[in-house]
């Protein structure tokens, strides 16, 4: 329990001091990204999700690291999706600056109150006969390498599939990097 509340507290802390990491990024002279105002969500690529969660706001503009929410990516085959508690940890405090944002954040709070998690539509899905261990790829390519396969999610208002995730695409990369192409590497 202490761990949980600790994590929630950490969430709040990160939310309150978002300026901190942003300042650190500034020192490295990375350009600041400002998420655009979306007037027509129908034009966006990718499926419409139950809550219009904007990766471009969270990961791009606020520069929250991918691993803050997808925190098991370094230790598990599954990157994990954040629990509602993680969302609520910040959005307990942050209500949103525009009416559009406020409407979406309200959905998060309502889901928390009703204990009904949103059913996100899965975008990157592999068939059951393929194993993709995230942790090994992250170990080799680093924690900033998500965009290699997922595209620059930091600029995506709505996430869509970037790579084909087909076998040829996998093999291509394995050939280029001269790593194993054994069948049983992925099919076992």
């Amino acid at each position, binding site marked *: 329990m202490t761990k949980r509340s600790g994590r929630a507290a950490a969430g709040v802390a990160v939310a309150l001091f978002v300026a901190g990491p942003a300042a650190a990024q500034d020192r490295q002279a990375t350009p600041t990204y400002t998420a655009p105002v979306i007037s027509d969500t129908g034009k966006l690529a990718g499926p419409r999700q139950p809550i219009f969660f904007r990766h471009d706001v969270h990961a791009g503009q606020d520069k929250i690291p991918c691993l803050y929410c997808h925190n098991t990516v370094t*230790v598990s085959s599954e990157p994990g999706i954040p629990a509602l508690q993680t969302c609520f940890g910040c959005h307990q405090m942050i209500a949103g600056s525009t009416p559009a944002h406020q409407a979406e954040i309200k959905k998060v709070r309502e889901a928390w109150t009703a204990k009904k*998690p949103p059913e*996100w539509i*899965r975008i990157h*899905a592999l068939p059951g006969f393929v194993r993709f261990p995230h942790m090994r790829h992250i170990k080799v390519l680093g924690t900033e390498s998500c965009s290699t396969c997922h595209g620059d999610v930091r600029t995506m208002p709505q996430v869509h599939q970037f790579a084909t995730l087909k076998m040829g695409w996998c093999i291509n990369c394995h050939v280029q990097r001269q790593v194993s192409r054994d069948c049983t590497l992925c099919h076992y």
Partner: protein
Amino acid sequence: MDRRRFLTVLGATSGGAAALSACGIGPEPTEHLVPYIVPPEEQIPGTATYYATTCRECAAGCGLHAKVREGRVIKLEGNPESPINEGRLCSRGQAALQGLYNPDRVTEPMARGPNGEWQRLTWDEALGRLAAKVKDARGRGIVFVTGLETGSFGDLVDSWMKELGGRRVAYEPFAFEALREGNRLAFGTATVPFYDFANARYIMSFGADFMETWLSPVGYQNGFTRAHSFDGDRDAAMAKFVYVAPRLSLTGMSADEWIAAQPGTEGVLALAMAHVILSERLAPAPPDAARLRDGLATLAPEKVAPFIGIDAKEIRRLAREFAGSKGGLAVAGGVAAQYATGAQIVADVNLLNYVAGQIGKTVKFGPNQALEGAGSFKAVTDLATDMGAGKVALLLVHGANPGHSLPAAFSQALGKVGYKVSFSSYLDESAAASDLVLPDLHPLEQWNDSRPRAGIYALQQPVMQPVFTNAMHAGDVLLRVAGRPGTFNDYLQSRWKELHQRFGKGRDFSEFWTDALQHGGLYGEAPSQPVRLGPGALETLAWAIGGNPAEQVTLIVFPSMALHDGRGANKPWLQELPDPVSKITWHGWVEVHPETAAKWQLANGDVLLLKSPHGAVRAPVWITPGVRPDVLAVPTGQGHKAYGRYAKDRSFNAFELLDDKPTAFGGRAFAVRVSVVKTGDHRRLATPGSRAAGSSKPCRSRRRVGSSRGRIPSRRSRHRRTPRTRSSSGPRRSTSRLHSATTPARSRAGGWRSTCRNAPAVRRASPRVTRRTTWPRWARSWWCGAAK
């Protein structure tokens, strides 16, 4: 609308996508990612977390490692650190998962309404009702029935009952009363010692099915495997194993020699062996063993051999082998300890160990099995009498189902009890007859501890969040009703603080506690204690000469390996697990020797009506040479009247045949005289491979009618011809029509006619087929020879 447009429109809807992908075209159906609301502790999606806990499926108390994925336990294995099971786990332990996820679990508190229907309650209502009833019944008889609880929960119940002036009755249908009483007779201590199978050089089991249900089956299997193999640290001498019992169990099938002594004479056999060992001075016996010499004088093998039914030479040979091995271990239990004279038989077998000088070597008193708290059958029958006399105003039942194992006496007496409360997680017979059900958490979801063996303190921790969140730990219920502060976890830890002072070794409590949790408990060694012959030892001999137990037995009731006393019957894994001897699944049976079957003109699957003075059941016949011709045997476990969809109304309840009166030693007699009536009914025995000709495992004596032209092939050629099944041959029923002149199937040479004894259905399917009344010689010699 053209085809392309049609598909586009269809594909846009999710139902269409699903329909298309079901046809093998179109996109994969939409997958959803549903996040946790609060993530479970220590869980990493995609990787497993393991928790150490303790198995509560029987009294043995094996250590468990529970594999948990995404907050759900998915597999149980033995804890390698536990000295009880050393990393192994039996089928019943594995199937505990199906008790946890059982669809028939009671999910919330319920009470009987005015018309007998179940009404849902909130916990506040339920606890208020219980508290009121407790207040009401105070001084008018409060009884708490539990299973074997050797830890904190048992102590909590005891202290609460003391406070209220009530009493606790522990009830286990197989509580090994005879072992405790037999040890008291022989050595003056009513305990159950540790049997060191691993270091035995010669093992004799008098009915003890230590590979199935006897005491600690997993641990004793481990020990036996070590003793009965060539490897290990010992020289290449494999311990011989001799099994003495009227029925061949899984344990018996693992033996090197089976001696089907006259039922009830197992003790006399042990004493005759003791006589030989003493008179021939085969072993350095303890000095006071000389006291037995006079008593044993009348038990020379030559005198008792006809009584036992085996040759005197055999008895002398066994005695010489046993003593000569210098590491003999004789154990009594199972069938032998369940006659009316069971305790004496256990005492006799103890004397055999004693004169061979093995007490303290292979039989170790000290690290005793914690069965003192298992109660006795007599205590339960006394309770039933009290209930019938209206002396019990409030009955609370937890972890026991006397309504199933004591069908007549207990169930009738239940009607006279003022108010009945059940803590069962399932609506078993006892819970269904109660007024209030307060569903307990499953052992995998709760805190508790136990002391399965002296020196071992096993811990139970919740390995996951409760499946049904509206169940409550019975310990928490008691604490709240008793008005005590804290949760059961606090109570448990407060008791472990005492252990911390003894075993803490200077660590602080939280470190000690976490360490114990990680390892599944504290594993210490209890020192071995010497025992001497007790004052009752000579009376034991007096009985052995005077009694004539051979008259008593015709039917023995043995515990089912998978279903045990019936608690496994609601788990489909255990139901579909073929019995290791009969291979029968999902129903009960009665074992009949081929000679008896021939005499009575029985075939496999014929339903018999078995009538004892106490009840009657209908059981299908399974013909086996693994039972004496004058003995019938039926397993326990089936025949539930409640207990969920998998257990209810399945087969027969063998407990109905048994006497409700306790034996002289306070246990239950599992052997009764029965009369047998052929009902004329028949059922197909549900064995693997008996279902269809297209099954993957062909029955080994199925033979090809077309090619052999009806000739019964020799044993060797029969093996060579063990047919490969053909998918085109269809269900076996059609192949049986080979014998019917009217059906075209006859021309289909190459179908298989069954001569397999396990598959009577084929013979039954066509009325024209005459049933075999006597067994062909080849079948007899083959089976009986194989069993020798």
